[in-house]
């Protein structure tokens, strides 16, 4: 049992950290965010050159063959630096789905382009009515000769403005909320009948609402009606990834807040000498360590295919939501008026944590699922066991 990174993982971590230090001051980030798609194509190219875009993909597909730990390493640094480039939507979601879908021709065509930094992708799954139920899908796909034709609307598509290709979740059979009867389609983002309205999330990242009117899909990803089977593990892995990102963001907020507590003076002493603020700083620290521990738990159990992996991931996502809110709230509060401004990065980290809480379902949603999993288990102990001497 150990929680150490391999030498390779440490190298990845160090190189990302260096990148962040050089390219992600608040001013630099504001400049990146103000670009057309909310990120820097030059940075993206650099990611490709440094090999980061290849890490999650199998060696057979030209990747590095990384696993949950490698993704964690990358996403934590992305979280620490508030990096805006679309690693999550393009690599983990879009690329992850193409890889998981198992169709060799798609893998061979597109994964190298992703790895080379030449292709931006997105996963279009949310709909106006779906809220956190990913299987609540009314976008329809119907067969028309050899083609699949898609009609419907997707919202809050991450990286939806920049994406050249989309994976679209559509219903091919079943009722509105059935898990069965969903199919994933590869769609060209500029195909006839695709309309995009791009806008921003609060942390500056690019999203789009996309309508599909008689859009002919380029290919089926995976099998017809079996979309959930491809999607679920990819989304679980994305859940892990955003939780690692959240840890990085929380670490940064802790560091910034501690620094402020140690330097900001009021009533002639540093505010960090007030016991009430000290105890709350301990609470922030404690919340952050809880996230780290559950992240290690979820990553290790996922990597080992352990039976506790699902429960661990659900617990993690709940904790990320709750602890993120606590850490974010306290960071703003302890920074006082300055925490309310866009002149510090505190607010942007807080917003990123709030977005991560929402992604793939918020804390309450995941806790409901956790309860179902946890209470389904039978335990074996008797109360006498709890009697200490």
């Amino acid at each position, binding site marked *: 049992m150990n929680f150490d990174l391999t030498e390779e993982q440490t190298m990845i971590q160090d190189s990302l950290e260096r990148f962040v230090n050089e390219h992600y001051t608040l001013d630099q980030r504001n400049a990146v965010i103000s670009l057309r798609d909310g990120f820097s194509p030059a940075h993206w190219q650099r990611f490709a050159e440094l090999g980061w875009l290849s890490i999650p993909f199998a060696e057979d597909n030209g990747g590095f063959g990384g696993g949950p730990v490698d993704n964690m390493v990358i996403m934590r640094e992305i979280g620490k630096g508030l990096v805006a480039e679309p690693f999550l939507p393009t690599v983990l979601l879009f690329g992850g789905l193409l890889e998981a879908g198992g169709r060799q021709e798609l893998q061979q065509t597109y994964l190298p382009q992703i790895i080379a930094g030449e292709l931006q992708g997105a996963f279009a799954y949310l709909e106006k009515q779906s*809220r956190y139920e990913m299987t*609540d899908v009314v976008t329809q796909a119907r067969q028309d000769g050899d083609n699949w034709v898609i009609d419907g609307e997707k919202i809050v598509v991450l990286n939806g403005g920049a994406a050249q290709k989309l994976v679209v979740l559509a219903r091919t059979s079943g009722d509105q909320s059935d898990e069965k009867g969903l199919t994933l389609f590869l769609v060209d983002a500029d195909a006839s009948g695709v309309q995009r309205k791009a*806008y921003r999330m609060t942390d500056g990242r690019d999203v789009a*609402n996309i309508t599909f009117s008689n859009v002919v899909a380029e290919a089926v990803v995976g099998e017809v009606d079996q979309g959930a089977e491809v999607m679920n593990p990819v989304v679980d892995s994305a859940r892990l990834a955003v939780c690692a990102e959240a840890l990085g963001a929380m670490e940064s907020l802790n560091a910034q807040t501690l620094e402020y507590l140690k330097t900001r003076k009021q009533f002639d002493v540093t505010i960090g000498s007030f016991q*009430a603020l000290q105890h709350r700083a301990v609470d922030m620290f404690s919340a952050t360590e809880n996230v780290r521990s559950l992240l290690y738990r979820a990553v290790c159990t996922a990597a080992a295919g352990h039976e506790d992996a699902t429960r661990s991931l659900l617990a993690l996502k709940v904790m990320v939501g709750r602890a993120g809110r606590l850490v974010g709230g306290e960071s703003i*509060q302890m920074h006082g008026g300055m925490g309310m*401004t866009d*002149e510090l990065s505190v*607010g942007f980290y807080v*917003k990123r944590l709030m977005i991560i809480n929402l992604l793939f379902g918020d804390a309450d949603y995941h806790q409901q699922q956790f309860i179902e999993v946890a209470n389904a288990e039978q335990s074996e102990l008797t109360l006498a066991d709890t009697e200490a001497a």
Partner: protein
Amino acid sequence: MDLQYTAEEHAFREEVQQFFAEQWDDEMKSMLENRRGTDGMKPGMIEWQKRLYNKGWMAPGWPVEHGGVDWSPTQHHIFNSERARVGAPERIPFGVTMVAPVIYSYGTEEQKSKFLPRILASEDWWCQGYSEPGSGSDLASLQCKAELDGEDYVINGSKIWTTYAQYADWIFCLVRTDNSGRKQEGITFMLIDMNSPGVTVRPIATIDGFHHLNEVFFEDVRVPVANRIGEEGKGWTYAKSLLVHERLSIAEVADSQGMLAKIRDLARREINGGKPLLEDARFAQRLSDVEIELMALEFTELRVLADAAKGVQPGPESSLLKLQGTEIQQTLQELLMDVSGYYSQTLQGDLSDEEFGNDYADLARKLYFRGRASTIYGGSNEVQKNITAKYVLGLAS
């Protein structure tokens, strides 16, 4: 113990209701229900305050000779509850509630006749210059300097967190005229024309996306001695006495009740997994947690009100109004965000509600982020707890 209003109070409530029914009309609503920010807000607020003025209700708390109405605490409460119930805004406080009491209490006759009528008629927009970049909760450590030079003071320094300075005609400031004694001494209360040469306003971008905060710089700004309130060096005393004039409704119970009702309605409408969010067990629990706290706070406010109506000092529970009120507001803002789901973290920008897919989240988000300030400004909740521990519970500092 008895909850009933008197016959007079009932009649007053009817009059208030009638006023709102007539005056809080579609024109007013369309002027003030701008959901995309505060930029269009100024003309609407002035129009609304003029309607209050025309009814004689712009400044009910002022002495009658200056235009006040001599309402009882219960009448103030009734007015405010009805206002919140229809969703009309509170008056912008900086002029009518904050500087005016200082002017009519400590100002010269010239100052009273120059400033009070214009405040009453909403002809001047005021802002407040207390906080400075270095001062925070330790307000008295302020450094913005005023030096006497002939008939004028010359002001140099800056003020921060100045709400709506971008609209303001006047700013009332605490400035330092003496550095030799205790920091509370040597502070002078000054009224400054925002159009004076040397005054500049820098907007502060805030996490809520509204433009409401500013930093105000003074560079060799000349202010006539006639604009000084009372004596030099007594500004701290005047400013403190102003706190007594703070409105009774500091807990904003009525506004929170409106917010809670709205959250419930929206949670009935939002569907997750085929079920209204309101029936989600955890959501329902969280909503009821805060509802119960709000029900308590409502009566804490009424207890304070009942004391005020009797003319006796409010009990120790009055120290909790701001603490609990702001915490409840933040909880409600959080719940409204949670109801909004993904939409709470997306910037609607130019998209119509239809394109965006939601008609309330944009505002929910702004309220949430702006609400973070409520436990920071006006004495952070930490400072409030210190004060309560010391003065109410008698614990040594």
